[in-house]
């Protein structure tokens, strides 16, 4: 658990983070989002003490981090950044092995760990282990960056706009990968982005920041249902809010049981309501057959279902 207790950071006369208090539970995926200069990156970097607090206290599992050894603290915290920061003169395998090496693991354990992480990030070891960072695509380099951050098996993972420099398709893939990985490893993740769609997709909890303060925090659903002020509303894209909410609902949660003949057009049960609506619009139909991953017909979703109030 990470607790920020009235934490401030001033740079000269400018207050970047202002008396911010926040509690992030173990295993939670927490996304800090807000406009540039809102203090989200500074907040993140205070957690591994790359930036010192001007006042206030940050505790990890109840321990004030100011009392811990800076390097030991960082070895416990994975860190991934936008431009990956991979060491250009080291191979992929050596880059990933950095923290285990600093932790003094025996060689065999390090090798096993590197192999495990390459497999987790779907980078075949035979192909990638001995490559250098400049031989990788942007998406591959960022996968290595994430692998390196996870290498020491840290309890906490800090990610500072890790997918910010990637093209939309690669970004989407990596977001899915991260969700898959998180469902396996259950780390406490603090993730900074300025992309609200990324936040809505990844977060269990979104913290919206402005001028170094928290404007609102809650689940993506809570934010979409009840934005606290004009900034949050603007961030959520005003006129598209309904569609963003639809993006959070899965078709299988609102389909009707199958009856009669299945409609001609189909959609996956795990697809979002937003995708279903888009499909209806492009195919000029009102009903879609819902099929599960095995291709079985499990229900029907109707255009009218989309506007029904949620019951769950």
């Amino acid at each position, binding site marked *: 658990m990470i607790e920020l207790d009235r934490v401030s950071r001033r740079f000269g006369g400018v207050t970047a983070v202002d008396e911010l208090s926040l509690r992030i539970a173990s295993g939670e995926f927490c996304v800090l989002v807000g406009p540039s200069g809102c203090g989200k990156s500074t907040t993140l970097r205070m957690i*591994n003490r*790359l930036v010192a607090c001007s006042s206030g206290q940050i505790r990890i599992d109840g321990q004030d981090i100011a009392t811990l050894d800076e*390097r*030991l*603290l*960082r*070895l416990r915290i994975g*860190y991934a*950044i*936008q*431009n*990956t*920061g*991979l*060491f*250009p*003169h080291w191979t992929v395998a050596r880059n990933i092995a*950095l*923290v285990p090496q*600093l932790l003094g693991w025996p060689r065999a354990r390090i090798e096993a760990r590197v192999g495990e992480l390459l497999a987790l990030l779907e980078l075949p070891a035979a192909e990638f282990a001995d490559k*250098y960072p400049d031989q990788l695509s942007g998406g591959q380099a960022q996968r290595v*960056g994430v692998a*390196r951050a996870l290498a020491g098996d840290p309890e906490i993972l*800090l990610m500072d706009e890790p997918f910010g420099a990637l093209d939309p398709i690669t970004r989407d893939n990596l977001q899915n990968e991260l969700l898959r990985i998180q469902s396996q490893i259950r780390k406490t993740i603090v993730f900074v982005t300025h992309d609200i769609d990324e936040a809505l997709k990844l977060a269990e909890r979104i913290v919206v920041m402005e001028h170094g303060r928290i404007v609102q925090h809650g689940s993506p659903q809570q934010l979409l249902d009840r934005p606290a002020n004009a900034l949050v509303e603007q961030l959520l894209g005003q006129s598209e809010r309904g569609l963003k909410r639809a993006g959070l609902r899965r078709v299988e949660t609102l389909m009707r049981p199958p009856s009669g003949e299945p409609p001609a057009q189909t959609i996956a049960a795990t697809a979002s309501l937003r995708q279903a609506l888009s499909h209806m619009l492009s195919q000029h139909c009102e009903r879609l057959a819902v099929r599960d991953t095995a291709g079985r017909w499990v229900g029907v979703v109707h255009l009218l279902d989309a506007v029904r109030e949620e019951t769950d």
Partner: protein
Amino acid sequence: MRRWLPPLLWLALLLGASFAMERLEPLLRWLDPDSRQLLYQRASLAALLGRHLLIVACAGGLAVLLGVTAGILVTRSWGRDFLPLASQVASIGQTFPPVAVLALSVPLLGFGALPTIVALLLYGLLPVLRNSLAGLQGVPPAVLEAARGMGMSPLRVLWQVELPLARPVILAGVRTCLTLSIATAALGSTVGASTLGDPLIAGLVNGNNAYLLQGALLIGLLALCVDSLFGALSGPGPRPPG
């Protein structure tokens, strides 16, 4: 291993020229048919080469040590106040001609090898310092941020990240420093140091073109030898860093 061929070749020529100059006597005779004496005899060329190298090694070694150390110190977070000063010194210093430094240091240090070493040191320090600064400042900020964020100690960051990444640029500075020093060390002969400049001075004073050629040939070969050595060192190794 082909990249080691040029330095070896130049080295062979250099050793050949310093130990077997008499083989070139017909050439020297053709160049200077009137001279009584063709081969420089006051000291063996090999001994002069050795002393020349010693002076260059002393001055160059000190220049590298001081230049790289200063470059490292002023790029640390606590040394940054001195960075502008170091950059300025590095850029203006080279406008001083070494002859001037030599002329100024003789009254202070007397004649001999010492003023020569001081002049070479001051002259050679600057390319090393300038390139150390450029190399260390050229390390991508994201790499340093990641290194610190991962929990590497400052010393480890310097040793395992900054210096390896800055190495090609620093080596280029050392290369400039040494080749300049080899050429300039000959000036030491004007203030009483024994170098490969001796035959040059003697040749100029006596109007002996054969002496001139011997001195120039050896200095040139030595410079080429060291320069190509650095070419091989910084050339494509198993992988170009950076």
